[in-house]
């Protein structure tokens, strides 16, 4: 195997400038949306006292979940010693850091009192899974940056594997923590399930790898660096397994719920209701985000980079829909405050069959700006530091490749 | 950030308050309270009012201790500033007692995001009320 040569991208083309410009505009629009929401108060959003977490949280949770998943590629190389993945390690860690930063930014800017960040950092309630997550997120930055350093600094090579293992374990705990934010909500019919945490881990594998593969393919195409089929094939096969696993966990989650009579109503609401959540679940999450990409990945179409890219985009959109159904759908279904009773009237919306959420434009812009910031960090990262191997052609990365 | 502001402001107060050399520097006009004297000597309050209020805040919030000496409600009641029409001004008005100095020192305060910035005592309806003020 040849020595891998990492190199910054040139970043002088008009395409590169245009990419930065577009991302910058979206990011700025996000800041504008934040200032508007923060100045007016949350009354300008679609959120209210029933749907307390909205569009920003869908994006934030998606990005945070995907962040830990994006680190997987590096972990496979380091922890499981798969040589072919090693050249991708640096890019993988960069993406993990960038996605987490984007997600946290959105989460933070949606707070009722974002000016009190210092309070969130200094007052801890250790019984709160949320407080643990603050520590886990900060720790993730620290652990991955050390990992990256060990990876890029020659004299640190002896410590490279332990750092990789630490990062791998940390990311598993982190995603468990993110999933538990919902799993611990005992009163909400849709959330109260232990399967939430492992399901979030497998979701992170899938979303993170889909984003990684998409950016890898685009990055190598735009910079006109060679990217061999061997590595793409490995990654897409792995992605196929993850997508199938997410479908399996989704099936297990709903089947378990369907078994318990007390959860029949919420299952009916999600699976066979007349709200947007049913459409999102079947059409976007399952069909577009699961079955079609699986079919592409395991068919001859997958030899086409365009089709494969399309599949990853579908997985990303399906993933956003999945988080939407979990977060918003779970809140839209009314709380079961009086089991066995029907609420005839209430001044606080308890009598609705389900709550309707109409996300406002600023919320959506804030959410999407998190994605833009993440991609911006990745773009700037590969521009200024040696993250991307000059060549990922088959002969350069795969020692067994004959071609 | 906030603490930095506070420290800066304190520095300004100490520097400008203790020196007579800079006599031509404009100083804030601080309205007088409506009682004979404050709960502590004015000099002490000027420097330490925030720590007193902060301490009292936690005592009241967490433990239900509602002594009157450093109660924000009492501060507001005594230091009320009235406009030309005789109505108490709110924190949105630059003549408000707190603003008179905080605007000068450029120290943002968060209190009145939640707390009432002017007296609005409601009439006691309880039969047992009265007897003390």
């Amino acid at each position, binding site marked *: 195997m040849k020595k891998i040569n990492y190199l910054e991208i040139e970043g002088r083309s008009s395409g590169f400038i245009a990419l930065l410009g577009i991302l910058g505009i979206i990011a700025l629009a996000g800041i504008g949306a934040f200032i508007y929401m923060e100045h*007016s*108060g*949350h*009354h300008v959003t679609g959120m*209210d*006292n*029933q749907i*307390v977490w909205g569009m920003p949280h869908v994006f934030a949770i998606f990005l945070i979940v995907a962040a830990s998943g994006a680190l997987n590629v590096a972990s496979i190389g380091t922890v499981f010693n798969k040589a072919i993945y090693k050249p991708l390690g640096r890019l993988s860690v960069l993406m993990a850091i960038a996605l987490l930063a984007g997600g946290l930014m959105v989460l933070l800017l949606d*707070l*009722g*009192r974002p000016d*009190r960040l210092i*309070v*969130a950092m200094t007052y*801890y*309630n250790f*019984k*709160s*899974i*949320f*407080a643990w997550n*603050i520590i886990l997120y900060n720790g993730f930055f620290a652990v991955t940056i050390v990992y990256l350093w060990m990876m890029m600094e020659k004299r640190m090579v002896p410590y490279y594997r332990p750092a990789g293992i630490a990062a791998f374990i940390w990311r598993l705990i982190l995603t468990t923590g993110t999933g538990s934010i919902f799993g*611990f*909500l*005992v009163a*909400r019919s849709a959330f109260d399930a232990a399967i939430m945490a492992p399901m979030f881990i497998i979701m992170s594998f899938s979303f993170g790898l889909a984003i990684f593969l998409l950016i890898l393919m685009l990055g190598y195409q735009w910079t006109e660096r060679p990217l061999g089929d061997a590595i793409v094939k490995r990654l897409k096969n792995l992605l196929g397994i993850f997508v199938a696993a997410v479908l399996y966990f989704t099936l297990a989650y709903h089947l378990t719920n369907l078994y318990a009579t007390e959860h029949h109503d919420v299952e009916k609401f999600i699976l066979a209701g007349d709200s947007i959540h049913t459409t999102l679940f079947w059409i976007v999450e399952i069909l577009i985000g699961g079955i079609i990409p699986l079919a592409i990945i395991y068919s001859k179409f997958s030899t086409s980079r365009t089709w494969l890219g399309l599949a990853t985009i579908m997985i990303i959109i399906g993933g956003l829909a999945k988080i939407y159904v979990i977060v918003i759908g779970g809140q839209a279904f009314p*709380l079961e*405050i009086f089991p*066995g*009773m*029907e*609420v*005839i*009237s*209430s*001044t*606080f*919306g*308890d009598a609705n069959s389900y709550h309707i959420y109409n996300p406002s434009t600023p919320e959506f812009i804030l959410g999407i700006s998190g994605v833009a910031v993440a991609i911006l960090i990745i773009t700037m990262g590969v521009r200024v530091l040696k993250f991307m191997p000059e060549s990922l052609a088959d002969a350069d990365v795969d020692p067994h490749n004959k071609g | 950030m906030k603490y930095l502001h506070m420290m800066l402001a304190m520095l300004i107060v100490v520097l400008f308050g203790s020196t007579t050399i800079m006599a031509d520097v404009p100083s804030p006009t601080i309205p007088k309270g409506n009682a004979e004297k404050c709960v502590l000597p004015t000099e002490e309050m000027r420097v330490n009012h925030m720590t007193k209020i902060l301490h009292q*805040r936690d*005592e009241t919030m967490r*433990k*239900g*201790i*509602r*002594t*009157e*000496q450093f109660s924000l409600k009492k501060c*507001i009641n005594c230091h009320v500033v009235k406009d030309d029409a005789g109505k108490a001004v*709110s924190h949105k008005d630059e003549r408000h007692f707190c603003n008179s100095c905080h605007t000068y020192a450029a120290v943002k305060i968060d209190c009145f*995001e*939640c*707390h*009432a910035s002017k007296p609005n005592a*409601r009439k006691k309806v309880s039969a*047992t*009320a009265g*007897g*003390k*003020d």
Partner: protein
Amino acid sequence: MNKQEIPVQGISRRKFLGASAATAGIGIASGVSLINIANAKPLDEPVSNDQRWGMLIDANKCASGCTSCVDACNTENGLNAGDEQLSRQGQKAQWIRKVELRDKATQHEISLPLLCQHCENPPCVDVCPTGASFKREDGLVLVDKHTCIGCRYCMMACPYKARSFIHEELLNQLEDVPRGKGTVESCTFCVHRLDEDTDNRRDPACVEACNADGHQAIIFGDMKDANSAISQQLKKHTSKAIRADLKLNPGVRYRGI
């Protein structure tokens, strides 16, 4: 100095009333206010877990369509002081609400007020990242708005949907009830009334209003004081906690549900 006299007076009254209540409480069944006064504390003493404020709501006495408790709460806490004009209906704060229910099996209809249940094991306190949501020694579950960052996780966790988020700037807060944009709030059992000293301590506004209307559907008092009206009623009659299956041991109990 008048200020220094207050605690002294408070203690002496408290001792006196404490002694008399022990004898009076046995004989006077309706001595609600007397007994409650005995439980009050001087202004300079912290609340203690020797007492736990609680509420017993009799749904049989609660009139369908009546909103006296809600109106009284709104007025007492400044929820209708002219703020929240920009917020939509679902965004406005509500600390206590009236709910009309029908038993799916028997068609029996009931009406009841629903408010923060002041749980012994409150999920909102467990999930709060900064500890702003907290339980006071005397059982009140409150939000410390000084440290609330507005993440709304407590609203996700509360099984009773008892909390409201403030969606816009407020300008007409009452001096006893601080509330503001970007923070979460809920029923405080009118803590500013409970914390008054011996002479001025009063029941929460909703309780007073319900009594004034002649419904007498809500009894308020110290659940740890065996002689209090609420303790005696709880001991005598069957009562239920809403979502008792969650084992949160709420401080609000119901009869007739």
